[in-house]
């Protein structure tokens, strides 16, 4: 996730202090990985330097006295980013795929690896399901996003398991 663009997007709602932006970021997008104040102010500084935001000083001292406002260029940047689809990355070209094929090449039990990976995926899905049942709608929607992706991986894991003998013939031929 792009932290600068996300902060800029939050700033697109209304002029804000760094503290408020951090609070909203953590509440909606942090999910256990809150931003540090240092990261927030450094990012806001860069956005101001690049002409994406303006800084208005208020009486007093310290970083919290700075109020940030998005510029037209900043707004255009956010809107372009939001309109652009993410690359539909073939997630299969990841460690999961590499591990299965390498296991076969090395004569290691690929099925056993898939079983362990399957259990790990389902354990995470259980955690997300718990979160969904105990949290609010924002938690539930984020959990669902993770759940659907993990489910896609799991379907691939199961299908690969069923195809292991064919895959082995192919890889070893």
């Amino acid at each position, binding site marked *: 996730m792009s932290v600068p663009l996300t902060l800029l997007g939050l700033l697109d709602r209304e002029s804000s202090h760094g503290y408020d932006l951090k609070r909203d970021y953590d509440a909606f997008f942090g999910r256990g990985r809150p931003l540090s104040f240092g990261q927030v102010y450094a990012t806001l500084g860069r956005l101001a330097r690049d002409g994406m935001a303006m800084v208005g000083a208020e009486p007093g001292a310290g970083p919290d006295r700075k109020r940030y406002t998005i510029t037209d260029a900043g707004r255009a940047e956010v809107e372009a980013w939001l309109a652009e689809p993410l690359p539909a990355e073939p997630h299969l070209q990841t460690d999961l795929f590499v591990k299965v094929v390498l296991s076969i090449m090395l004569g290691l039990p690929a099925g056993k690896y898939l*079983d362990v990976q*399957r*259990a790990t995926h389902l354990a995470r899905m*259980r955690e997300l399901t718990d979160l969904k*049942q105990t949290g609010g709608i924002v938690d539930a929607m984020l959990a669902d996003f993770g759940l659907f992706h993990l489910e896609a991986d799991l379907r691939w894991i199961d299908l690969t398991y*069923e195809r292991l003998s064919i895959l082995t013939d192919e890889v070893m031929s």
Partner: protein
Amino acid sequence: MTVVNQTSSVFRDTAILRARELVLSFGETPALRGATIAVSRGEILAIMGPSGSGKSTLLHCLAGILVPASGEVYFEDERVDTMRDAERSRLRRDRFGFVFQFGQLVPELTAEENVALPLLLGGTRRDEALRTARAWFERLDLAGMERHRTGEMSGGQSQRVAIARGLVTNPDVLFADEPTGSLDSLNGELVMSLLTRAARDQGSAVVLVTHEPRVAAYADREVVVRDGKVANREGAAP
């Protein structure tokens, strides 16, 4: 099996239901080829596996609906697979509950009569059975549907009525075979959420057959059935 021997002392104490080396064929087609499994008291266990792997057959053997050709099934200390038909029927009625993919409600009865049915079959007086049944409607987000018939309810509502019917006798084990199989995502989630919450509230174990990972994620644990056997190493025992 080595795995079972290593863990049997653990699950003898906690398992409410266990099966060992179950074998069963339908004609020439083998369905179970040595399946071993144990379910703890109050545990929600998902049985997963590809189509035709034997997962529903395993559920039917555990529930005393089917009798394996060989192997053993125990509910608490009672041997289920050698019971007479009448004893198995009584066990199913008194100690087990059932939810299937399509609610299988009786269309001639109202929703509350459907829920009360297992109590009535067990000899509970009609007014008492209906009173107990009605208490389930609010719990399953069905308040106001008591007098509806199946044709007047959505798929999700019917399935929640089926859950109430499955749990109304306070069973030791609820068997659920693809309980969300005919529902869309949102209704499926509501059904699973209510089913697992209600089962946990009253301490019923749940044996849940599903091929959907997101449904299995409501369980405490999952096992995978492949080629008629419980595949994962930890599958045999909790």
